[in-house]
């Protein structure tokens, strides 16, 4: 089967007493085997919630996750009970997080935490689990794995902690790895090392979803990219096509906003305005209030998906009537 993960019309609504927050409001994409998907978008666009909904790890309630189809390796995830989901987490899907320091238990050694995961899913002896953990640490480029296994998280640097998290999440050879802004909390040199590591480790899993607002990271790591805005996807396709010739005004805005150290400028370009409320999103295209090319149609009608070139599609009215949207 070519499709590793199929997501069709995924919605995650948080139902509170006063309002319904539509954090993710109908997104559709697939990750094929061996593929790395970059999920891009600004803060609050719903990227993380989308990823957590795919794992079904968001707390339900208050969240309500629905989809026309949500399947991992052809198996429906939406219907799984709590126990089955737990067996899946860490074994078939794992996740790594933004700030590695908080995600490790301060009172347990690295070895204890890693063997907990391995023994939970593989049912091996403590000794075998320790050896497997040492091998994993070796794989993520940690010097002296046996001594690291005996250390506590506070004795490790941020970069080392993130390597431990990565080693831990890959220790049961999951099919899908979700990396939720894995480099955001790290400084630039460590960022480069972690990205390098992820690129190397991509081969170890069948698929990777990388969540970030850093398009450069996606360009260096991913095969396909999906751009998210206010709970919806606005553009998706192969990395070269989307980042090389972005078609949606939002994607183009994001790309233009990347500062260029070489060019002297008085002011940085940016996308004006803020992300709209997820409680009462604007009618029509959700980006319309911030779009420079907005038409009356945009404000009234929700745009449909259109293919601008094979495999590269956008949800924008201008793709047909504007024409000019295709150039970068």
């Amino acid at each position: 089967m070519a499709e590793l993960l199929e997501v069709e019309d995924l919605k995650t609504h948080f139902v509170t007493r006063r309002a319904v927050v539509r954090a993710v409001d109908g997104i559709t994409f697939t990750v094929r085997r061996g593929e790395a998907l970059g999920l891009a978008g600004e803060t609050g666009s719903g990227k993380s919630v989308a990823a957590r909904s795919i794992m079904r790890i968001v707390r339900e309630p208050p969240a309500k996750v629905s989809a026309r189809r949500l399947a991992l390796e052809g198996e429906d995830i939406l219907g799984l009970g709590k126990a089955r989901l737990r067996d899946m987490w860490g074994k078939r899907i794992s996740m790594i997080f933004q700030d590695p320091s908080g995600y490790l238990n301060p009172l347990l050694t690295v070895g204890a935490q890693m063997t907990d995961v391995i023994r939970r899913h593989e049912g091996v002896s403590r000794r075998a689990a320790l050896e497997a953990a040492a091998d994993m640490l070796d794989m993520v480029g940690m010097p002296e794995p046996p001594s690291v296994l005996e250390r506590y998280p506070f004795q490790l640097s941020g970069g080392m902690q993130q390597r431990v998290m990565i080693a831990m999440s890959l220790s049961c050879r999951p099919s899908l790895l979700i990396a939720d802004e894995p480099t955001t909390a790290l400084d630039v040199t460590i960022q480069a090392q972690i990205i390098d590591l992820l690129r190397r480790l991509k081969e170890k899993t069948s698929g990777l979803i990388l969540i970030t607002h850093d398009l450069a990271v996606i360009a260096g790591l991913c095969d396909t990219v999906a751009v998210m805005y206010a709970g919806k996807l606005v553009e998706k396709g192969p990395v070269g096509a989307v980042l090389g010739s972005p078609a949606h005004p939002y994607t183009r805005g994001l790309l233009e906003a990347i500062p260029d150290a070489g060019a002297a400028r008085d002011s940085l370009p940016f996308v004006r305005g803020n992300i709209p409320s997820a409680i009462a999103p604007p009618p029509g295209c959700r980006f319309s209030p911030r779009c420079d090319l907005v038409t009356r149609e945009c404000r009234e009608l929700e745009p449909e998906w259109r293919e601008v070139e094979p495999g590269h599609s956008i949800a924008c009215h201008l793709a047909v009537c504007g024409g000019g949207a295709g150039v970068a």
Partner: protein
Amino acid sequence: MGMTGARVNTSGRFERLRRACRTIRKRAGVSWYQLRRNRLTMVGLAIVMLLALVAVFAPFIAPYPGDEEGTSLGNRLKPPSREHLFGTDDLGRDVFSRVVLGARISLRVGVIAIGATMAIGIPIGAMAGFFGGWVDEAMMRLTDICLAFPHLMLALAISAALGSGLRSAMLAISLTWWPWYARLVRGQALQLRNQPFVYAARSMGATDADIILRHILPNCIGPVIVNASLDMGYIILATASLGFIGVGAQAPTPEWGLMVSTGRKFFLTSPWMALFPGLAIFVAVLGFNLLGDGLRDVFDPRSRPR
């Protein structure tokens, strides 16, 4: 397995143990340093250790360890002297010996009652805090009910049912004390269950039991230890009160509260009978409170500026 796996094997159990010891020493070193900086805490620690030593070696320290030994009615109500440091009581028994033997009783009652209290309170609190919802609601209402029981009344009821004695006293104390631990641990669990590392453990497939035992409980042990050492004092006091009102230890047990109670009748003529056991209670409670306060400063640095 690879080369690194082999290295784990050859490093051997001994080497691993040695490293673990070093880590523990290093961590203990930090806490020790923090403890030592506070002089009052050291006083508390000294009192508690002295008390423990006295309790352990009571039969060797007491000049008249047996009840009958040195007892003679001709020797009753003698003031403190070289022979009887704390004087003698109305039956001619050596008060010093009885105070020393009483340390054993008070400490044992304290340890057992705290143990039972924690055994009931901690699991209830952890489950209430971790699961939340109706589990929390049900367990906390049960806690409120037990908290509303005046422990002296409950002790009276229990000793009426089971007969007076130290066992009834301990039972009464445990049954009225556990709610404090349930509340304490619940608060900690509520905070901890939203910690990123708990989320990460969940995302790796950890079960609820794994999370409570491996991630929640170890992380709330600090406040529990502080409370336990503070409560040791209060429980000794509570045991003494029960003994004093007559539903705890029964004569001739050398229990401090009971001794104060008996001594009360002779207070005007022979004050030493009530005074010394009373002082022992005072010193023991003070010691545990000072130690507990110091431990709190170590475990919870936020409460330090006082």
